């Protein structure tokens, strides 16, 4: 256990050093992570205003609040392992990682956390700026604030394990861009990114409740905004726990099968 803690500490340090070196990459992510919620914020507030009321229970100010919180939640939970894996396998750099005596997922988690530690202040400033411009309708409750932190941690873990599992597809085919695109679409529609889930047609909402994506983004956001009843909050935590367990087991299985297939493509 102590070995693992040391590993994380060291990876975090190297990660921070490397992200400070590659500042431009950081700027590119930041623009993407700020711009996308901002676009949907504007689109849906425009829709709410033009209908003169609410859409799926959200008014213009509610959409602003929803997407500002979503930006923060997404910042905490998002991953880029799919794109990393594609490169790793094609270029063969994964061969060395596989020889390490610890599971390579730990290095990825640490790298993810260290980049986010560096980029978080910028996202917080952006969120504050958007809050000043768009007049979001926040109503904070103590219960929501207390439950938000564990929900966020679970959301991060579930999203990381699921994305890592999807990324393993790179072991099986060198053309993963189509798989990544489908995964991106599923996240966009079923996580609450393209619209809050209550705005979606009923059948899509049912699908969203079954898939993991809602529990990694939409659920913490709605929780923070105080839009969920205590029963819904408990159901959400149960769903997160179930998906965490399922993803961990599936990943273990998929990992064992995939590594056997591993052959580096590059030199």
């Amino acid at each position, binding site marked *: 256990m102590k070995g693992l803690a040391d590993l994380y500490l060291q990876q975090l340090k190297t990660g921070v050093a490397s992200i400070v070196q590659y500042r*431009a*990459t950081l*700027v*590119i992510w930041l*623009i*993407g992570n700020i*711009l*996308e919620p*901002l*676009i949907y914020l*504007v*689109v849906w507030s*425009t*829709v709410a205003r*033009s*209908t003169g009321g609410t*859409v*799926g229970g959200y008014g213009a100010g509610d959409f602003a609040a929803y997407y500002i919180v979503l930006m923060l939640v997404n910042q905490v939970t998002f991953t880029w392992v799919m794109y990393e894996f594609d490169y790793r396998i094609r270029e063969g750099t994964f061969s060395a990682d596989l020889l390490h005596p610890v599971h390579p997922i730990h290095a990825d988690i640490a790298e993810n956390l260290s980049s986010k530690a560096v980029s978080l202040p910028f996202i917080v400033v952006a969120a504050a700026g958007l809050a000043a*411009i768009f007049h979001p309708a926040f109503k904070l409750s103590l219960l929501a604030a207390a439950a938000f932190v564990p929900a966020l941690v679970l959301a991060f873990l579930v999203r990381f394990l699921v994305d890592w599992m999807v990324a393993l597809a790179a072991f099986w085919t060198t*053309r993963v*861009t*189509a798989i990544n*695109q*489908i995964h*991106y*679409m599923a996240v*966009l*529609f079923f996580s609450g990114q*393209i*619209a809050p889930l209550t*705005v*979606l*047609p009923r059948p899509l909402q049912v699908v969203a409740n079954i898939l993991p994506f809602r529990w990694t983004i939409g659920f913490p956001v709605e929780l923070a905004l105080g839009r969920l009843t205590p029963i819904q909050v408990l159901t959400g935590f149960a769903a997160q726990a179930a998906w965490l367990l399922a993803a961990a087991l599936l990943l273990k299985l998929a990992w064992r099968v995939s590594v056997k297939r591993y052959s580096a493509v590059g030199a």
Partner: protein
Amino acid sequence: MRFLRLLGVFLRVGVMGEAAYPANFLAHLIDSALELGTALAGLALIFAHTATLGGWRPEELIALVGVYFLVGGVIGLVIQPGMEQLTESVRDGTLDFTLTKPADAQFLVSVWRVEIWKMVDVGLGLVVLGIALARLGERVGLAQAAAFVAALVAGGVIVYSFWLILATTAFWLVRVENVLVIFQSVYEAGRWPVSIYPGWLRFALTFLVPVAFAITVPAQAIAGRLTWPALLGAAGFAAALFAAARLFWRIGVRHYSGASS
């Protein structure tokens, strides 16, 4: 005429280079079709709740998506690969060979790389535009069509000049490829009419990163909502920016001293 012949040669080389990998065509088609499907599904979701978005009717926004793919395809086809190659050649010094060739160097660096698979995006964009036009029906007259073509050309020239100016900064800054990537991530904002964005963002998307001229203005022309003064303004801006880019390019080349051995 000579320019057209050279452009034809570069396109043919691009086709020949990739013709050996026909499976790539299918892969790119699937990727682009998925992206298009996402965009259209998003529109369907929005218009399930409202009749117009900031005054735009559904078929007009479909036309906008068509323009988004068409222009994005052209950027990816020649502009982006050429400009990326330019910044690389400045860094490693191979631009020397290009500058000594007996054709205009700016023209050469603009068309010397062709990412032929982006033709898929151009094609899909045209199909979507065709569908939108069919649904708009007789509302699109000859004047609108002419205005659309003019606006598209102006938008293309503006985007090209903008990329050239960014890439030319490589003569001084050397490493600018990340700046080019940033344009790509901001381009996504153009999938929606810029008129729905708040003023500061609209300004940025019009003049700092000219997405508005490339996508919204041509789509406005189809919707018959582009006034003649606005079209003239776009054409004037295109001419001015092109001249500025040309001037900046010349200053850059004069500054260039062959970076590498």
